[in-house]
């Protein structure tokens, strides 16, 4: 490569210029920082309301403070946005006519076992067990 630049045929200069242009382009690409500097902890603390603006400005983060003040003004404007007036009436008109009531799934419902029910359940279980046993013995 180096030898090509020093070629005695006079083409060395042209090659050198072309190589320089290519190199410049590569260098220009490399000018984009690979690791971008993020916001400092002070700026985050200020935005979280933990530090006063003056302290952050003293730490040298003027640009970030100005930038976030600008964003903050836009955010404050958004905080004033109201629901369009027709929406509440629209929602009321769209509500179901029936009164809402609690629908409890069967497995969450309270189960009351009276002595009578307990005897009936016990008898049913015993009968089922006897039937299964008889079927097994017969088979």
């Amino acid at each position, binding site marked *: 490569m180096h030898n090509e630049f020093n070629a005695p045929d006079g083409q060395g200069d042209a090659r050198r210029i072309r190589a320089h242009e290519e190199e410049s382009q590569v260098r220009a690409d490399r000018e984009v920082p690979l690791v971008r500097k993020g916001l400092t902890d002070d700026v985050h603390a200020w935005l979280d309301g933990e530090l006063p603006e003056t302290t952050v400005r003293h730490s040298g983060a003027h640009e970030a403070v100005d930038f976030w003040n600008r964003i903050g003004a836009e955010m404050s404007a958004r905080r004033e946005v109201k629901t369009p007036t027709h929406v509440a009436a629209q929602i009321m008109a769209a*509500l179901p006519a029936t009164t809402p009531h609690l629908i409890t799934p069967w497995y969450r419902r309270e189960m009351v076992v009276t002595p009578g029910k307990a005897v009936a359940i016990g008898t049913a279980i015993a009968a089922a067990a006897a039937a299964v046993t008889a079927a097994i013995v017969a088979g």
Partner: protein
Amino acid sequence: MKTTTAQQVEASPAVDQLEADQAIISRVLQGHREEFSTLIQRYQDPLYRHALCMTGSPDVAEDILQMSFIKAYQHLAEVRGRFDAWVFRIVANGCKDWLKNIRRTHLSYDEDDQPSGYATPDEELDRTELRSDLDRALAALPPSLREAFVMKHVEGRSYEEMADLLGTTVGALKMRVHRAREALQVLLEEKYA
């Protein structure tokens, strides 16, 4: 009378609000359907703002708000604790579902609906440009970061309140807000910093 006033002063506004909401819910469940409009009027603005900032579309925000209040009405008997937190979660889930399922066609919201506190046309123009750039930048954020940023910086909620509403930790939310800020700074700094 004096005692009542003293009790009112001592009582926490949050507790008052909770009790007032529960009283309204009881009346609605007894068949006074029209009382539900009090709850709508009381909470619609912050919920609409949340939906608007999350979706970027006033029409979609209205739809999500309407669907959420209808769902809240249908399941009103299941409310335990704060109604506003419960209905907020319905709206937030509605926004997330919409973001998952639908590709947005437009991002900026209606200029005419927005208040203007700027004196000169130049300031207004700058502000309109910033607003649409900010909309685009917010739309580029992942939903979880956008949600955290909007709750912190538009709705002005504390990290504790956000953690309560979203069922996550303060640390995780701080991280999301910080990452959202970093991302917005990167997206907007070339033009505005």
